[in-house]
């Protein structure tokens, strides 16, 4: 069992895994590992949920004739399966400047320099997660689209289930972003426009934006029946301040400067972050939106499982 887990890329350390190759390759490994955890074989079992039997009609695929029943009752019936998919999913990825940051420059309490230096930025982590999620959904024959945004929409790939969609998504992920602000409302509205019927929206962001704006957009998505999942990406250094002394902390987007002694404010900061997470969780929960905080040091399998679970709850 341990050897099986060790080979699963979705359980690898994200930074170590990312160092092995490009997004496309890494995403495949992740999804392969993830599917290994779900089924004995990743190539079997997709959309093979048995629904009912119906009499054989000419033109039906002979692979679906139940030969055991034919042999027993001399009656030809065909196994009827549910429709493979009709889900249209849109992944909304925050590529603002705040996402292009990792706590590698700061040493978190109790972390060695090597551990801190090997950490992915929030954006790099989110991009690999988005690629893996897109691949996973596409393998379920879902239509997947991508919206990248900062203070404006950077990329908008309409949801498709056809071959080559994933490669387009991966290409989009490699485009530059990192604007000075995050305008989630516009991005979410754009994502809603890309999905012309009830579907799924996955927002991957550090949520360093105005909550009211996000809430308004979310209400709009929910109003038209979309299922929304929010993956709140946080660097561990954003949860626990590093153990450095006096410093002037600067927000790269708003240029807000906060001089502080880490020792003085560490507890208060941690409490504040917990409060903020609670506020997000409360607000999104009230809208029926799944919300999960993802640390950039967590294996990709963890957020993937969250997103996949949300997908599985959909028809």
């Amino acid at each position, binding site marked *: 069992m341990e050897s099986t887990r060790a080979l699963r890329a979705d359980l690898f350390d994200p930074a170590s895994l990312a160092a092995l190759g490009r997004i496309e390759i890494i995403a495949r490994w992740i999804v392969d590992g993830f599917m290994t955890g779900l089924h004995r074989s990743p190539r079997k079992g997709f959309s093979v949920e048995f629904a009912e039997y119906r009499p054989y009609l000419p033109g039906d695929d002979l692979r679906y004739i139940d030969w055991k029943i034919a042999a027993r009752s001399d009656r030809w019936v065909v196994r009827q399966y549910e429709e493979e998919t009709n889900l249209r999913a849109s992944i909304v990825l925050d590529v603002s400047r705040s996402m292009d940051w990792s706590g590698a*420059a700061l040493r978190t309490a109790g972390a060695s320099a090597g551990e801190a230096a090997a950490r992915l930025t929030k954006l790099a982590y989110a991009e690999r997660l988005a690629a893996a999620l897109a691949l996973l959904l596409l393998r379920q024959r879902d239509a997947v689209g991508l919206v990248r945004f900062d203070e404006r929409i950077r990329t908008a790939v309409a949801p498709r289930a056809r071959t080559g969609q994933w490669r387009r998504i991966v290409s989009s992920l490699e485009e530059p972003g990192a604007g000075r602000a995050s305008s989630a409302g516009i991005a979410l509205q754009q994502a809603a426009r890309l999905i012309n019927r009830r579907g799924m929206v996955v927002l991957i962001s550090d949520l360093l934006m105005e909550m009211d704006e996000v809430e308004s957009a979310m209400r709009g998505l929910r109003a038209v029946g979309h299922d929304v999942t929010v993956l709140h990406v946080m660097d561990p250094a954003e949860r626990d301040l590093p153990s450095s002394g006096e410093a002037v*902390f600067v927000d790269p987007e708003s240029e807000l*400067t*906060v001089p502080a002694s880490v020792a003085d404010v560490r507890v208060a900061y941690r409490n504040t972050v917990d409060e903020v997470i609670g506020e997000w969780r409360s607000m999104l929960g009230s809208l029926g939106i799944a919300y999960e905080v993802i640390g950039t040091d967590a294996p990709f399998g963890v957020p993937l499982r969250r997103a996949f679970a949300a997908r599985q709850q959909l028809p």
Partner: protein
Amino acid sequence: MTFLSPFYLLLAGAIAVPLLIHLMRRRMGARVEFPAARYLARAEREHSRTLRIRNLLLMLLRVLAILAVALAAARPVARWVGSGHAPTAVALVIDNSLSSSVVENGRPLLDQFKSMAQGLLAQATPADRLWLVTIDGSVRGGSAAVLRDEIDRLQPIDGAGDPVLALSRAASIIQSAGLDARQVALLTDGQRTEWQHAPQLSNTQVLVYAPSTKPPVNRAVIAAEARPVRWTPRGAIAARFLATDSTTYRITLAGQTLSRGTAAPNEEVVVHTAPAERGWVDGTVELEPDELPADNVRHFAAWIGAAPGVAVAPGAGDFAKNAVDVLRGSETVANGNDISIITADDLAGLPALITAPADPVRLGAANRALERAGIPWRFGERRSGAAAVHGAGVDDVTVTMRYDLVAQAGAAAETLAVVGRDAWIVAGPRFVLVGSPLTPDASDFPVRAAFVPWLGGVLTERLVGEPGQALDTTPGVRLPRPRWADAIETADGQRTPLGETLDAPTRAGTYFLTRGDRRVGALVVNAPPEESALDRYTADELRARLRAERTVSAPNAAAWASLAFRAAARRPLVGPALALALLLIVIEALVIGARARRAA
């Protein structure tokens, strides 16, 4: 509060460091990119009050710790708190006068003083400056160990000492010691006669102990003298005693018992004798020892020689001749030519009692004879008319005719009697010169009853033997050097050359004065009679007499040691200041530690 090293108060300026850190900390530190700065700002906003109070507390703790260290470095001393005592200049004044040797409760009072002084020195620290001052004004300085040895060797003097001098010196040396805490610690029996006068001790604190016990009844010899000092060879010893009842005495002369007897209170005992000794001899009058043995002996000295032969010249008059006859009858003088009583115009040699010639015509011859004899006086203008005479033994004498006595250059004679401002009788080496004839028409002196004793005194005291006399004094007194002596002889026969002054020894006794190899006089040292009166001042009375800035009296010997340095009452605060600094640092570390634990 005062500071022994106030310069170190400048260290308090270091409080600027935590103040600057506190004020500038917001502008210190590196700029760090941190996207979640909004959360940080919110955290600070919501917890700013707690953070501000904690930072203020830390700053205050650090400032106070620095102030406490600076305070300790400046070596503060104060009156109210602290441990031990501040470096103190202590002058320990021990009354070792004769009266302190009185035995009370089987122990000399001075021994009790010495024990108490040792107790004080036991509390001294190396930072203290210490002196021992005895009641004669002697000062010894040094460490506590040195002074302990000095105290062990301390003996009572045979006199009253000089308490004013001792206290003045004690106050002076502690004020020049350079220490803020100063203390004069006085141990005395509080004898009334000794403390009739007290010094002005401004800016001085005095701790005084005087026993509250009643002194024992004392018997003492308060007077002993030879009458006259020169015996020819007959003389007498007169003595008086302090006693409440009859007391037994003994008189010795030259180490031999001369007389024993019993004297009634306040009775003067006079013992006549004509001993065989010759020259200067010493003697004592003694009582049986009592609780104060030091005043049970009193010394005297006498010169003993054969009666001088006196020749009276015919011109000297009948009154002089008759007086000498009387003196011969009492064996005060004898027939002979050792001394002549003669008018100046007939003067042939010395020693002589010289009178003015009765006939003014002989005045020139008289002055020439004086010049030949080397006498630096001449007869001057003749004066008539009644005038009163003043002088020892000649008061109430009236002169009707006299000559002015004119001093010549280098005259160093002693004036024995005057008329108005003019000398009438002068004396010098081996001569006595009278400005009138010894006749009733010149003065009524020859017919006065005082004439014969005066003449006997002149013949036996001034004109007989070597020049010299017995000098009565008290221990330690400084006297002018007697010109007729060049050395002083101690009891063991050692001779010490005299300087410009003569300091009386501190021990009672008879010390002979010598010139060459011969004894020419005596220095008789005795305690002042007042020292035998042991009545004491109470502690409050004594405190009132000591006009010091502050006087604390120890109620008993046990309280002495505890009050010894507390009277100065300035204790060092170095220890408490350092303890405070340490406490503040510990509190600061605890506050930081608590913050770090919460942060972790």
